[in-house]
């Protein structure tokens, strides 16, 4: 049984359909990249996978005992967060909230998890710093550490490198790859097809041309070829 199985999924708002006939499976340990044009429904798909939004039709099946509170999510940054007065530690710790249930305060174990994930992301020296004073790359690491507090199994990332400088972008991709090698399943939305091809094991293309398969299959497919040719021409 796959970690996530998507069957005949249709996405949209109110009566307008954005994407339909989505069928794919995510196995444990996969690195899936979701690519596609703007407005093709990438973020909507992710929100549906997270159960934040109900599908218009079709279904998302979670297997292998994957519970709602075992999913780590790295959303796109919001305006509110950009000038939020909070320390790195407070933010990372808030990733543990789903473990608390109705318990009002964090316990020792949760504080250790937060500490461990900060070390994993190489930001433990920033613990007391204010979030809004960090660089874009550091902020993303903080949010990634928070997402890791919420999960051991699967991470959903919504354009984790948008707005980062080239160095930070490479650092971020490496970090995600490392996490994947440690056994965490990755589902990532990306604009950057070449990076997707470098790191991912599977590609899902949404939009007018639907495609799902491994990276190798994508490279041989019509849609894959046409995208790569346009990219080459741009260079």
């Amino acid at each position, binding site marked *: 049984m796959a970690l996530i199985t998507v069957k005949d999924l249709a996405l949209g708002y109110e009566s307008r359909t954005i994407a339909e006939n989505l069928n794919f499976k995510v196995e444990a340990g996969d690195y899936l990249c979701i690519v596609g044009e703007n407005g093709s429904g990438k973020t909507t798909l992710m929100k549906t996978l*997270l*159960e*934040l939004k109900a599908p218009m039709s079709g279904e998302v099946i979670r297997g292998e005992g994957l*519970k*709602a*509170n075992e*999913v780590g*999510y790295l*959303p796109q940054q*919001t305006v*509110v*967060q950009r000038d*939020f*007065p*909070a*320390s790195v530690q*407070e*933010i990372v*710790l*808030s*990733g543990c*909230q*789903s473990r*608390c249930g109705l318990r*009002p*305060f*964090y316990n020792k174990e949760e504080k250790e998890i937060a500490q461990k994930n900060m070390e994993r992301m190489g930001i433990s020296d920033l613990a*007391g*710093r*204010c979030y*809004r*004073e960090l660089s874009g790359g550091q902020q993303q690491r903080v949010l990634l550490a*928070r*997402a890791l507090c*919420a999960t051991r199994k699967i991470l*959903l990332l919504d354009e984790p490198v948008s707005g980062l400088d080239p160095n930070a972008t490479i650092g971020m991709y490496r970090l995600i790859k490392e996490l994947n090698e440690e056994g965490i399943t990755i589902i990532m939305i990306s604009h950057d097809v070449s990076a997707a091809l470098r790191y991912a094991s599977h590609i899902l293309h949404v939009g007018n041309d639907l495609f799902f398969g491994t990276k190798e299959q994508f490279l041989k497919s019509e849609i894959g070829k046409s995208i790569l040719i346009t990219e080459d021409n741009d260079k």
Partner: protein
Amino acid sequence: MIDKLFLYLQYPFVRYAVIVGVLIALCSSLLGVTLVLKRFSFIGDGLSHVAFGAMAIATVVNVSNNMLLVLPITIGSAILLLRTGQNTKIKGDAAIAMISVASLAFGYLLMNIFSTSSNLSGDVCSTLFGSTSILTLSKQEVWLCIALSVMVLLIFVLFYNKIFAITFDETFSKAAGIRTNAYNLLIATVIAVIIVLAMNLVGSLLISALVIFPALSSMKLYKNFKSVTVCSAIISVICALAGLLISILAGTPVGSTIVAADVAMFAICCVAEKVMGARA
């Protein structure tokens, strides 16, 4: 001057005013940080106008205890406003403006048509600006206020971590399986309770000041959520006390004096931020 102060403090109504004033300042500042960060600074203004409209209805239909009508109506509007946060046709700020202006207009209209008092503009003025109502509190009202404040404090402390998480990133919390809607409902209810309480102190027009000034001041000084919250509570209590004492001594209107103290504190914090920034 000190003698004069002690003389006044011997009167129970002055002591009541001080107790209620400090409690309200404390409660309103706690959620102020959340509201400012969630871009809901104006909800205080909007809800207080709703409470004003409800008060007018209560006066007209002659309910024995105003609170019975004002509190549910205000809570209802708060839920409506905070719920409409995202994905709606009318955006948050427009919705607040709409509800606020409409209830202000209807409140005044009702009071005008079914006027029972000879001094209508005086009544309106005191509901809007607070005036003397804080000095005419009964023992019952003081206890009610204490009880509600304790409740607000308890809720805030118990749900502090959840409130932080939801304020910082609602989508993430929701994805992690937190029932954000329930917590938003809770926040809305608490805000409504605070606003109805605060109407007695500063009147409906100045409530926004009580909610946002301490939060903004402490955000100038501190950079993590806990310190900001604690500091804004302290600033708010200090300003409320200072404002109350000054207004007792100088005979100025209570609400406006407290807000003036808040503004002064904000100015001080701005300067302090500049000084600390220059040193760092």
